[in-house]
């Protein structure tokens, strides 16, 4: 039997506010446990939540960017359950009236086709803290630094039909929130993560299969793997005569498998009700208009502009605009006077390679955009050849200074003095009479041999164009 896969995602994007959603404590990552948890985050008796307006603005910004409905009067609700990392015994979230309503996103599939994925809603909520089981032998530690961190939970319709589509959707959301500056997108730190609802049904069947929920997946790679594992597990189960049970499952990246966390029967009744400590969030036209007016350029618009202004290949553009920091870096390089095509080649080639090798983000590149432009300009004005440029890049990456400093200190300046090149050409011709005969006999390929010899002699610094021309002139005599 052939099966159809149905996937819906709940993406949790941590909003990039300085302070928490209901308190003044900092949201910075990586502090000592419990140093960024104030009395409100700790759920002390008598303290009350006060909504961070920045979080509201960021949620609306996301909604406006994807053309979704903005709820004019949204309500915070309490989701009640007991867990040690949930200090109040309830999470403040939104239930019946989320701040962002229906919307949609267009994703690009591998074959280049486009697909529209529906967005059901996006709501604001506070994150819980963290239980630390590893550091203690016989007890559990609790770190409440993360408690109260603002999250935007973006819920999709069950519109995706493969793990790859799910990844494409997740990447698209990631790209948008990063462009908007509402989330840093850092998946290692948990700022961007997702739950996946997965089910399968016989191809052509209308009714949805029983779904499982895969919790807390924090990388694009794991999303694909977890979903694929889960699809296969469900199909095997059904084909062996079993049934899928509705449950929450956890993906274990080390074992590459999902395993059951809790079934529907054990599921909590969260007893949602409107939080009486918070007023409804009322959003008026002016608020939306102001956010709309201040929206940054989004990926599609930027891609169009890059195509029009720089004449780049569409595959290059897609990669460049795919990441907001890379797009910004590229634009800065071009802005400093570098040729756009050369700039694209260097950013996507040497620079991306070096970043990947050192596992660095472009935002913390060891070569600044200004220095990168400096290097490209030396190629453009023939101070160095493309080949030498690789050496210069390497030295710049290793912190040996800007392009000019490296060229100077290593003596890599290209030789354009015709006399000097001519001397080298003459010597090479004199040293290799056999090859001269071959060339004269019509073996054009030998020219490359001569060029190589001349470059060797000039330590690669001779201008290749000039070398070629001189060789031809002299060998044709």
């Amino acid at each position, binding site marked *: 039997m052939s099966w159809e896969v149905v996937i819906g995602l709940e993406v949790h994007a941590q909003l990039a506010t300085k302070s928490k959603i209901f308190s003044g404590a900092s949201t910075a990552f990586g502090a000592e446990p419990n140093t960024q948890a104030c009395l409100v985050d700790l759920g002390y008796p008598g303290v009350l939540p006060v909504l961070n307006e920045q979080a509201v603005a960021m949620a609306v910004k996301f909604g406006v960017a994807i053309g979704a409905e903005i709820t004019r009067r949204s309500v915070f609700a309490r989701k009640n359950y007991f867990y040690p990392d949930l200090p109040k015994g309830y999470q403040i979230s939104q239930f019946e009236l989320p701040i962002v309503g229906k919307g949609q996103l267009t994703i690009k599939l591998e074959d280049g086709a486009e697909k529209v994925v529906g967005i059901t809603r996006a709501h604001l909520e506070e994150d819980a803290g963290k239980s630390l089981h590893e550091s203690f032998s016989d007890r559990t530690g609790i770190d409440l630094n993360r408690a109260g961190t603002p999250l935007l939970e973006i819920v999709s319709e069950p519109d995706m039909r493969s793990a790859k589509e799910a990844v494409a959707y997740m990447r698209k959301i990631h790209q948008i929130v990063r462009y908007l500056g509402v989330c840093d997108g850092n998946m290692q730190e948990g700022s961007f993560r997702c739950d996946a609802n997965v089910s399968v049904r016989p191809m052509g069947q209308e009714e949805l299969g029983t779904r499982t929920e895969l919790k807390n997946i924090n990388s694009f790679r794991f999303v694909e793997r977890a979903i694929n594992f889960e699809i296969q597990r469900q199909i095997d189960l059904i084909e062996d005569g079993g049934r899928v049970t509705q449950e929450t499952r956890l993906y274990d990246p080390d074992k590459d498998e999902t395993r059951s966390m809790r079934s529907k029967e054990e599921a909590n*009744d969260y007893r949602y009700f409107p939080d009486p400590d918070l007023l409804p969030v009322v959003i008026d036209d002016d608020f939306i208009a102001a956010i709309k007016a201040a929206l940054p350029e989004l990926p599609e618009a930027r891609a169009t502009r890059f195509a029009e202004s720089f004449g780049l290949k569409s595959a290059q553009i897609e990669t460049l605009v795919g990441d907001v920091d890379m797009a910004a870096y590229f634009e800065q390089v071009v802005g400093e006077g570098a040729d756009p095509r050369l700039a694209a080649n260097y950013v996507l080639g040497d620079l991306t390679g070096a970043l990947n090798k050192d596992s660095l983000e472009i935002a913390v590149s060891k070569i600044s955009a200004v220095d990168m432009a400096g290097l490209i300009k030396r190629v453009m004005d023939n101070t160095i050849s493309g080949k030498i440029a690789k050496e210069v890049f390497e030295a710049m990456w290793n912190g040996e200074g800007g392009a000019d400093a490296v060229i100077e200190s290593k003596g890599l300046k290209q030789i354009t003095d015709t006399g000097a090149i001519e001397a080298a050409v003459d010597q090479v011709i004199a040293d290799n009479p056999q090859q001269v005969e071959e060339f004269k006999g019509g073996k054009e390929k030998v020219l490359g041999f001569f060029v190589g010899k001349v470059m060797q002699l000039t330590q690669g610094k001779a201008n290749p164009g000039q070398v070629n021309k001189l060789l031809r002139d002299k060998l044709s005599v």
Partner: protein
Amino acid sequence: MSTLLPDFAEMARALRAGKVSSRELTGDCLARIKRHDSTLNSFISVYPEQALAAADAADKAIASGSAGPLTGIPMAHKDIFCAEGTRTTVGSKMLDNFVAPYDSRVVSGLAAAGMVSVGKTNMDEFAMGSSNETSYFGPVKNPWDLQRSPGGSSGGSAAAVAAGLVPAATGTDTGGSIRQPAALTGLTGLKPTYGRVSRYGMVAFASSLDQAGTLTRSAADAALMLGAMAGFDERDSTCANVPVPDYSATLNDSLQGKTIGVPKEFFDDGLEAGCAQAVQDAIKQYQELGAVVKEVSLPNLAMSVPVYYIVAPAECSSNLSRFDGVRFGYRTESTGDLADMYTRTRSEAFGAEVKRRIMTGAYVLSAGYYDAYYLQAQKVRQLISDDLSHCFAEVDVIMGPTTPTPAFKLGEKMNDPVQMYLNDMYTIAANLAGLPAISIPCGFSQNLPVGLQLIGTQFAEGLLLNCAHQYQQATDWHLRTPVISGGAA
């Protein structure tokens, strides 16, 4: 003889004239507490050293001429208000060991006004009760009759002020917890408009109903205290950003032509005859003061107790979830797994009434019951609020009894929660609608004080205090004090 004077104004005059010091006033309160409180049990904690230090500071302020009308006057806080560095128990074993790390807005506001807090008063556990018998620290006795309850949940504050242990105390009122004890002990008890006083630092019972207020001898005293407690506080999102008027300035306004609405539903079979008589007499007194009386109707009043006992438990079931033994307060000694720790901690540290309300609340919020109970209750709450709005289209103030009976005997209603709940049948509507209300002494029945309740429109505290003050200028019920047996007065 006590140095306590009849009201704040006289105390302030005496302080300024150097006839008495705040240290003397405070010392006198501490002495009276020592003498009488083993009988009354109105205090959970008393802080003599801190109180005397604050009194000394007040005396300095008075000497330097920087004193306000409340500077140097002793008082007590209901033990529901967090006060930095002091134990805040909320009348519960759960927080028996809890030392608040910060000041509530009410505590800091009154301290800034120069009042001297001598300690924290007893209360029903988590403010859940109408007799002060649910307190982990034992019941409070009514100074008018030690066999009887002073009411609750602010029973400790009421008994302490009625017995003259302190001139005033704070309270909180979720369904009548200031007004009912004020009525049963012959005091003036003010519950302001919801949002008038910040709830910051006040341990929550039912967030949409809780409101801090005062228990004083007179409306004039309440006017001064409210001025120091009220006002916008950005730490409480439900606190109203509405200017605070000078409540003392309008106390002497004439009541000529003011209209008083008397809901006929207040005078039902449940109202004890002596109470009914005292209240009717008080309304006559108002007519003599120039007010016009009109009969009005609150057709949904009978629904207020059932609605309250859905909404308040729902909110409390969630509000009290934070008491889980993890970060503060009581934790069980037993070492089981996590679920075991939660269950034992909460079973061992919460009393029966608190458990009953948490269970009721969890039930009305659960899937399948939410619509039938919680949502339905919210709709009826709106109807009750609408009833009051309709009345206020015709009248300035609504008047009636505060309680159906005078103080009842300790133990009398403890085994019948519904009878206990019905004690709040006249007070709950104001909480459901978020309106200000005040109870003032208006006579006696069975030799026990009777309370007259006045309800106003949103932020009409000034008018309520004005009405109360005018009545108190014409009568002396508020000046009557009990003789406490078991200790010389």
